[in-house]
């Protein structure tokens, strides 16, 4: 009688749900009704409703936690219906879905949790927990991820090309609960990856060595070369001093000497005296003329200017030092090639049927 009433209630609820409330609300109603039936010990009804709910949820790709709750209730309902094999299958699905899941011991009785634990211990699967989009410096910083297993098992963690060919093995060995893993962004030969897509694969093996499950996640990798510094500009022509004398100094010496010598020679005439002997004036003017000739030779056009040559060489040396430092910095930056890694949706492959 109670079973019929519950069915009627479920049908009434299902019929009363307005189409406009959407698929999610229908699923929520099915799940709530199924749980309600379970709590009322209507295990057949609960199992039926929860299966329908899970079928909808699989299609709707709802969060793993909600699907796990549905499977837990379904497994418990099957257990209390006496269908232990169905319960084991449901629990195995639950373990495959989320190896970290543990039934709430305040909700489910010990026989259910014990049955679940037994299934979990026998089921060998793993969960790959990836970080968000991550950038690593090749060979320097690490791309870290976490592998959680359902129970003690042997795993084989490797990176593979999209076609399944091995790219780089990462770990082979036992895992009891979970394992922190890392990848330095390099391939097996120590070089940067030559492809933009690869697969992170975890093989779980039974104690007998048989393959139990395969979990793999597609990875999209992108090499991002670091920006290099531009070459520092060389000394501008306007910053360099002339390294050879132009004709200005020589011309100044020549003209200045002629002017002063002439001033000496014409000085008596300028002051109104024309009868003075010329010897002293000629001696002075001649000496100034000799000095002028010497000055002209010393400042002749084209002669090297050592001070300017040294000053220019200091500028060129400083520029060469800047070139060297930029070269070293660019070499360092070229070594620091960054690799961005973006993980996709994981998929689980079971070689054996449940």
């Amino acid at each position: 009688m109670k079973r019929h009433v519950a069915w009627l209630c479920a049908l009434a609820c299902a019929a009363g749900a307005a189409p406009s409330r959407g698929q999610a609300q229908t699923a929520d109603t099915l799940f709530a009704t199924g749980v309600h039936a379970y709590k009322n010990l209507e295990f057949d009804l609960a199992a039926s409703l929860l299966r329908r709910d899970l079928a909808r949820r699989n299609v709707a790709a709802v969060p793993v936690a909600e699907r796990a709750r549905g499977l837990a209730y379904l497994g418990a309902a099957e257990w209390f219906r006496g269908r232990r094999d169905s319960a084991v299958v449901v629990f195995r699905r639950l373990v495959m879905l989320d190896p970290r899941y543990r039934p709430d011991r305040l909700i489910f009785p010990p026989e259910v949790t014990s049955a679940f634990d037994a299934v979990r211990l026998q089921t060998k699967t793993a969960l790959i927990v990836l970080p968000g989009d991550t950038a690593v410096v090749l060979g320097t910083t690490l791309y870290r991820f976490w592998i959680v297993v359902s129970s003690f098992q042997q795993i084989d963690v490797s990176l593979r090309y999209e076609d399944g060919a091995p790219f780089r093995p990462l770990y082979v060995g036992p895992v009891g609960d979970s394992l922190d893993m890392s990848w330095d962004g390099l391939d097996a030969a120590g070089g940067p990856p030559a492809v933009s897509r690869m697969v992170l694969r975890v093989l779980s093996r039974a104690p007998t060595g048989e393959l139990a499950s395969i979990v793999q996640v597609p990875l999209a990798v992108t090499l991002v070369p670091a920006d290099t510094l531009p070459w520092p500009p060389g000394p501008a022509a306007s910053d360099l001093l002339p390294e050879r004398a132009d004709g200005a100094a020589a011309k100044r010496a020549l003209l200045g000497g002629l002017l002063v010598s002439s001033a000496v020679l014409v000085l008596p005439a300028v002051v109104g005296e024309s009868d003075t002997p010329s010897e002293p004036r000629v001696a002075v003017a001649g000496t100034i003329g000799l000095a002028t000739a010497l000055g002209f030779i010393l400042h002749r056009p084209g002669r090297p200017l050592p001070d300017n040559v040294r000053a220019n060489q200091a500028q060129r040396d400083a520029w060469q030092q800047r070139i060297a430092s930029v070269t070293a910095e660019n070499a360092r930056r070229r070594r620091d090639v960054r690799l961005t890694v973006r993980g996709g949706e994981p998929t689980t492959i079971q070689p054996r049927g449940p």
Partner: protein
Amino acid sequence: MKRGLGVLVAALAASSISAQTIRPVANAAVVTARVRSELPAGTEELSGTALRGTGAVAFGRFHLLASYLQGSVQPDGGAGQSRDLAEGTVLLGAVPFKWLTLETGPYARAYSTPGATTQRWVFWELRARAAGAFIGSAVHGYAELWRALTADVNVPEPFDHAEGGEAGMIVRLARSPLEGRLAYRIDHVVLGGGSRTETVDGVIIGIGVAWR
């Protein structure tokens, strides 16, 4: 005129405040002096050597200069008495431009002959000197002209005018206050409407110390 001169002096003074470093200058020179006196009665020529000492203190664009020259000149040909020659100058100068110096002040000259009256010549001069380096920064050339504004002369002829000048070169050693000088100078005084002229010229060879 006075207002313009005041403005010029004020401008120079204002610009010199920024460079209030006192720079002393001192030099000594050997001067070959030749005196030529043309009188209606005849021409007298004397020559000799004198020593001249000069000291100056520069403050910004202004400087105060004093010089003293003493020596004796003998008549050319050996006949006649020698004269003692002494000159003294105190000049206040200003540098309106880097290449131009203006100076003014009294200039006194004395000829003393044993047993005769000493001739004293006192002029108030205005001098202008243009100078500049022409061989690198080591050799400077200069040319100077002066003219007497007023004169007080104890000779019978009335003063007419007086002019003079000096031109030469100064060699300054790099990173050293020492300097050497080679120049030619001439002073020409006209009295009595040209009936008497007094000319003193000569070569200056000197060394000096200038703290720049």
